[in-house]
């Protein structure tokens, strides 16, 4: 707040009458000059013709309300003279005379008078008057108890509070306090300062109880502006960086420069089509698999470099799952085995296999102690880390799709059980929920919070489902190409505000999740892009895997980047536009 330093907006708001000195000193004392000097403006109000005037092009803002909250804002900022001047010039008082009087009496602790004044305010609703009287008298009660005037407090309780006959439970509590007074001291009403403080919070309480037009809520204007800014951020389609500063002077709109759009690095270690890749949870590693049956673990440290080449699988690996702590990796060879690897050493720690059957998918349980695998006989098996089969869930649980997901509490498995159906399987209770699609399902991806499921479908469309409670489809994304192969998609960016997908036209497609708008396509690959993964801890890094045997690492467009660095410490400026 600018202007005079103060902690007590309400006392500032109560204007001193024209006969007395203008400014109120530090508002800490609880005996302040009261009364409102509004006789002249009141007359002008009657003449100014009414509450119906509106401002703004939409005609939805009432002039009287706007002026009142501006006046409140001026007082809150400490600009008393201006506030007063505004009230006079506009003829619109911040608070009517009787309300001013009421508020002053509360602050002065003139309880009986304030209850009387309360009745003078036209409130219409008997109940509100009673509720308001109740809290005022409660404060009176506490202050009396505090001053050890026990009999007076009891008298107030008996003759003033209880007869209101609202809130008998509270009356009960108050009676008890008379006998055990130490309680009320804990309520913190002792001392002059805290008395003033509790009176101000009483005023706040009353402001909320009474209809909003009676007492203007503190900082209302600031609150409205904050709401507007929030909405601007929500609407910002390209919002992908934590906002450094927001300006009120123009609408917030990020530019394209915050979305990864430039190939920063091309990784050429694989000797065949790259089918799958995924960043670790901590964003420090990337694991990729290829038709060459190799899995490569990459380390990200500015640049991306090879950390391990994991060989052993005899079949290409179609799916990789990072352990919750990123120390280990599960890789699943197509209809083959699942291997568990240690990231630090690159060693294969265990091979999971089933006689005469092949494994098709794998996922870690969130507690890191068990894993689940899909099997070619359509069942799902649960294993402990040592390789013992803990449980087997038979029946039509999964088809030959490599995706297997699990909920945050580890209780629900997500698997494609039929060509067009996804099963949400509570494996402990055997409960089943289904998502039924209208076409063949190709693959799916889970959001980080596991509340949303992105399903990739045969006809080149992605469906986003909310899977909390009963599943509901909430969005669709299209534009990418898919006709022959498995093409994967993912969530990503700041707060997972974006959806990305590979495509058979060699491009990476990026949509804004909330609006469904396609915002960017990335060119660079020379073969179908099979899989994409967005770095969970770096919203500016995206990786894509392609039939052209390469992996592209995408980042921010450097040209625009240095512009921002020159003009503000690398912090994105909200006056967005390029």
């Amino acid at each position: 707040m600018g202007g005079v330093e103060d902690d007590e907006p309400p006392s500032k708001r109560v204007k001193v009458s024209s006969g007395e000195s203008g400014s109120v000193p530090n508002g800490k004392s609880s005996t302040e000059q009261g009364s409102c000097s509004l006789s002249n403006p009141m007359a002008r109000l009657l003449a100014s013709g009414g509450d119906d005037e509106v401002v703004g092009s939409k005609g939805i803002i009432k002039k009287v309300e706007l002026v009142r909250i501006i006046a409140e804002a001026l007082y809150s900022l400490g600009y008393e003279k201006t506030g007063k001047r505004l009230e006079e010039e506009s003829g619109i008082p911040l608070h009517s005379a009787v309300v001013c009087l009421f508020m002053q009496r509360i602050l002065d602790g003139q309880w009986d008078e304030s209850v009387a004044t309360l009745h003078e305010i036209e409130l219409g609703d008997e109940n509100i008057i009673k509720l308001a009287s109740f809290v005022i008298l409660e404060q009176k009660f506490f202050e009396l108890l505090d001053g050890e005037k026990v009999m007076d407090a009891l008298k107030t309780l008996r003759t003033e509070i209880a007869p209101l006959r609202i809130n008998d439970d509270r009356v009960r509590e108050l009676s008890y306090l008379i006998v055990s007074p130490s309680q009320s001291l804990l309520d913190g009403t002792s001392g002059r300062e805290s008395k003033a403080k509790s009176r101000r919070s009483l005023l706040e309480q009353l402001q909320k109880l009474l209809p909003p037009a009676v007492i203007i809520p503190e900082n209302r204007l600031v609150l409205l502006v904050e709401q507007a800014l929030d909405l601007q951020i929500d609407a910002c389609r390209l919002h992908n960086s934590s906002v450094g500063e927001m300006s009120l002077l123009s609408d917030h709109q990020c530019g394209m420069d915050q979305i990864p759009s430039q190939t920063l690095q091309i990784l050429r270690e694989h000797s065949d089509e790259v089918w799958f890749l995924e960043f670790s949870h901590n964003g420090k590693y990337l694991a990729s698999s290829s038709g060459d049956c190799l899995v490569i673990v990459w380390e990200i440290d500015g640049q991306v470099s090879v950390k391990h080449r994991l060989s052993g699988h005899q079949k290409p690996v179609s799916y990789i799952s990072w352990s919750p702590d990123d120390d280990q990796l599960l890789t699943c060879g197509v209809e083959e085995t699942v291997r568990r690897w240690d990231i630090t050493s690159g060693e294969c720690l265990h091979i999971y296999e089933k006689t005469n059957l092949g494994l098709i998918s794998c996922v870690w349980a969130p507690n890191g102690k068990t894993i689940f695998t899909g099997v070619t006989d359509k069942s799902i098996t649960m294993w402990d880390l040592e390789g013992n089969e803990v449980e087997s869930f038979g029946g039509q649980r999964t088809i030959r799709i490599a995706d297997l997901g699990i909920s945050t509490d580890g209780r629900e498995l997500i698997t494609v059980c039929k060509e067009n159906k996804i099963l949400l399987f509570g494996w402990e209770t055997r409960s089943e929920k289904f998502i039924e699609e209208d076409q063949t399902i190709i693959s799916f991806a889970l959001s980080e919070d596991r509340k949303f499921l992105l399903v990739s479908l045969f006809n080149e469309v992605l469906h986003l489902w909310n899977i909390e409670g009963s599943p509901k489809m909430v969005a669709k994304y299209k534009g990418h190409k898919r006709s022959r192969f498995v093409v994967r998609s993912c969530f990503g960016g700041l707060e997972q505000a974006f959806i990305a997908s590979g495509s058979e036209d060699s491009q990476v497609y990026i949509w804004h999740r909330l609006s469904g708008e396609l915002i960017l396509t990335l060119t660079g690959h020379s073969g179908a892009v099979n899989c994409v993964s967005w770095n969970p801890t770096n919203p500016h890094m995206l990786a894509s895997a392609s039939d052209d045997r390469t992996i592209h690492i995408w980042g921010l467009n450097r040209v625009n980047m240095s512009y921002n660095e020159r003009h503000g410490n690398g912090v994105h400026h909200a006056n967005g536009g390029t």
Partner: protein
Amino acid sequence: MDVDPRQYENIGVNENDIHQIVLSYLVHNCFKDTVESFVACTGLKQPVDHLEDMEKRKRIYDFALDGNSSKAIELTEQFAPGLLESNKDLHFDLLSLHFVELVCSRKIDEALGFAQSNFTLFGKEQKYVEKLEDFMALLAYEEPEKSPMFHLLSSEHRQNVADSLNRAILAHAKLPSYSAVERLIQQTTVVKQCLSQEFGKV
């Protein structure tokens, strides 16, 4: 061999047992004169002071029933010292009876004072706090009979307290706190219920 409950008429009954049952009822309820003549007629042996004790107990009971709990407490302390210390619930009930008396006679200041000096100790234990809240709430109403706590003023409540006191005094004197006939009726009721359930199943 199973005893068939329906063949109860074949069970023999000892006359002395019947006398004891009647006597225990009379003693429990302090029917002093009746006890005197019954004992004379049946020749049952009784301890020397039994009539006097009964008289004292009756007085205590009557005071409690009336709501004059301070008198009841005084006499109890005399007659059965240490009883109230070891019976906190009862002590609390009696004190609160007195409190209620004061509130009803609109002696608010006294009631408040009484509460402050007697109840703060109880207030330290959670199980009494809720009860205390109920009683203290009476202070808040100018017409306690019309308050949500009006049941605390009822004669039923006083009856319950008086009964508890009576039982406690009997127990203290190593006498049974429930009269035999009470127990018999309770047992018979349960048996009847069981039997009707059993036969209901057939």
